[in-house]
C-alpha cells in the first residue's frame, strides 16, 4: 500500500446522498478476479447521462470526490474502493460514510475524510464556481485546505499512522501471532469446525 501523507488535487462535486456501492460499481462488474480495471464500471449507470457531473470536461482529472451524506452504503464489495482508485481518486470527503465502505477504504489506502455537511456545501459551491480550485487534504496536519479555508478533521491515530506509513494490516497482526496461538489453545471444544463435513 502506498503511503498517504498529503494530497493536492481538483474536486468532483457529487451532490447526492446515499450513494450506495451498487451505484459506485454495479454487480455486473464484480465478476473480475483482479483488483484492477474497475474504472469502467465506476458510476456506470449515471455516466450514460452526458449531464452527469463526472462527464463534464471541467472536472476531468479530479482526484478528490466530495459527496453527500451516507456515502458507500449497502454491499460490502471492496470493488467500490478499487473502482474509485482505478479511476484516479485518492480521497473521498463526506459528512457520513457507511462503516464497511470506510473500513475497506482504509485497508486499501483510499483516504475517507468526514467533515460537516456545511463544509461539504461550501466546498461544492467553491468548486462549482471554480472547477480548477486546488484542494489539499493533509493527513499529517489533519485538515482540508482550499482558498483561505482550513477545515480540521478527526481520524483515529492508529489508522492515520498505518496510512501514513503505508503498512499492511496482515503483516502487523503476524507480528503478534503468538497471541493468536495462545488464544486458540484456550478455545472451548464445543466450537464448531467445518472439516470434516457432517
Amino acid at each position, binding site marked *: 500500500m502506498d503511503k498517504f501523507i498529503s494530497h493536492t488535487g481538483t474536486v468532483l462535486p457529487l451532490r447526492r446522498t446515499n450513494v450506495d456501492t451498487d451505484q459506485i460499481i454495479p454487480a455486473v462488474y464484480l465478476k473480475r478476479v483482479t483488483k484492477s480495471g474497475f474504472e469502467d464500471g465506476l458510476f456506470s449507470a449515471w455516466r450514460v447521462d452526458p449531464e452527469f457531473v463526472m462527464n463534464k470536461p471541467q472536472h476531468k482529472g479530479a482526484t478528490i470526490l466530495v459527496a453527500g451524506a451516507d456515502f458507500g452504503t449497502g454491499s*460490502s464489495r471492496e470493488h467500490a474502493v478499487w473502482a474509485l482508485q482505478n479511476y484516479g481518486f485518492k480521497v473521498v470527503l463526506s459528512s457520513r460514510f457507511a462503516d464497511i465502505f470506510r473500513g475497506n477504504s482504509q485497508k486499501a489506502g483510499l483516504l475517507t475524510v468526514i467533515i460537516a455537511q456545511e463544509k461539504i456545501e461550501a466546498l461544492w459551491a467553491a468548486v462549482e464556481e471554480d472547477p480548477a480550485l486546488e484542494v489539499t487534504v493533509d493527513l499529517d496536519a489533519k485538515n482540508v485546505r482550499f482558498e483561505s479555508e482550513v477545515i480540521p478533521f478527526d481520524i483515529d491515530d492508529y489508522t492515520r499512522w498505518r496510512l501514513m506509513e503505508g503498512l499492511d494490516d496482515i503483516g502487523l497482526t503476524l507480528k503478534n501471532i503468538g497471541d493468536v496461538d495462545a488464544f486458540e489453545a484456550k478455545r472451548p471444544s464445543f466450537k464448531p469446525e467445518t472439516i470434516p*463435513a457432517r
Partner: protein
Amino acid sequence: MFLVKGQVMGKTLSEKIWEDHVVRSAAGEPDLLYIDLHLIHEVTSPQAFDGLRLAGRKVRRPDLTIATEDHNTPTLNIDKPIADPVSKLQIDTLRNNAKEFGIRIHSLGDIDQGIVHVVGPQLGVTQPGMTIVCGDSHTSTHGAFGALAFGIGTSQVEHVLATQTLPQSKPKTMAINVEGNLKPGVTSKDIILAIIAQIGTGGGQGYVIEYRGSAIRALSMEARMTICNMSIEAGARAGLIAPDEKTLEYLKNKPHAPQGSDWDAAVAYWKTLQSDSDAKFDHEITLKAEDISPFITWGTNPGQGAPLDGQVPNPADIADIEDRGAAERALVYMGLEAGTPFKKIKIDTVFLGSCTNGRIEDLRAAADVLKGKKIAPATRMLVVPGSARVRLAAEAEGLDKVFLDFGAEWRQAGCSMCLGMNPDQLAVGERSASTSNRNFEGRQGKGGRTHLVSPLVAAATAIRGTLSSPADL
C-alpha cells in the same frame, strides 16, 4: 459515566461476545478479535486468495472456513456449463482456490449449496456466542442466533484467511425493543422495514443493534434471521438477538451442532448470552408491535419506506433538504407520482427469495396465500429457494407444485434477482415487488425499479398485479 469503585457495570450481549474473542488489546490500537467462522463465496474472495499467494501465506484455519457458490450462479440449467465465460471464470477460481488451500466448498449441484447465509444456519455451523464474518454485508443474518456476525471487504477476507483474526474498533450498542403482539398479516420483514424507515439508512451507523422485546421473542428463528439480515440497511455494523429455547430447539439436530457433553457445555455457555439487566446501551428505541402494518418501500434506498395502506409521499412535505432532494430523485427514477395510493402501483415481476426471505417458512407463507389461485395477467413471478436443501424441503411438501400451478417459475438456489449478477434481472423500467433487501437504483437490473416487500405482500401482489396484502384478496 461515573462508577463507584468496585462496582461492576452490567454488559450487553454484544459486549460479552466481544470480550470473549479479544486476542490482543493494546492502548491506541483496535482490538484484535478472534473469528470463529469465516464464510466465503465467489465474488469477494478471488483477490484475497491472490494476496495470500503473492505473500506466500497459507489459510490458518481451513477447518473454521467454508465456501459456497451463490452470488453469480445461474438458477436454470445448473447441470450445464455456466454460459457467461466471466461468471464461469469466477466460479472456477473459487473452486481452484478451495482446492489449493484445503477449504470445504459446496458447489452448484451439491445438496448443501445455497446462499451463504442460508447454508450456515442450516448446517449448524452458526451458533450462539460466535464471531462470524463473510465478505458480504448480509452476514448480520447470523446474529439471529446470538452471534456477533458482520460483513467485511476483500482485504479483511485476506486478513481472516491468513490470521483467523481481525483488528476491529469497538462498536457502540443500540437496543431496539419491539413490544406487544403483531397484527395478523404482519411479518418480521415489516418490522425491519418500519425500523429502517424510522431511523434511516445511517441511523445504525457505528452500532451493533440488539433486537429485544416480546414481539422479537415471539418470532421463529427464520423470522429473526430476516430482521438481523437487514441491520446493514439501517447502517448498523451488526444486529443480534439473544439465544433462547427456540435457538436451542433449532440447533439441536443440525449436522454441526455440538454432541454429547459438548452440547451440555455449549448450552451452559449460551445461557449466559443475555444482556445483563443493568447493562447500559448507548442508544435505545422502542416500537409497539401493534402499530406496525404491512410495509413497502417506494424509493431507492431502504429507508424510503411506508405502510402499504398509504400513498407515494410528496417530496415538498419533507422538511430535511437532503431527504427532500433524495425523494425527488427517487420518484423520478421509480416513475411514481406523489399522492398515488401504493395499492394502485402495477407490478411486472414478483421476486420471492434471497438471504432475507428465501427460507422454507417464507416459501410456505407465500404458497399458503397463492394456493389454488392464478397469477395476474402480464405478471411474472420468480421463486428462488435460498438453498438446495430449502428447494428439496419445499418439493417434499409440494410447494413447487403450488407455485407452478399458480403460474410462477420455480428455480434453483442462489442470490439470483436480489442483485442481478446472474441472468435473473429486471429490464429497463420494469417494476418489481421483491422480498430481497435492497431497492437501490439498478440493483435488480439496469433501470429496474424495486419495491421491497414481505413474502405475504409478494404473494398477494402476484395475484392482483398491484401492490397488495393478503387482506386485500
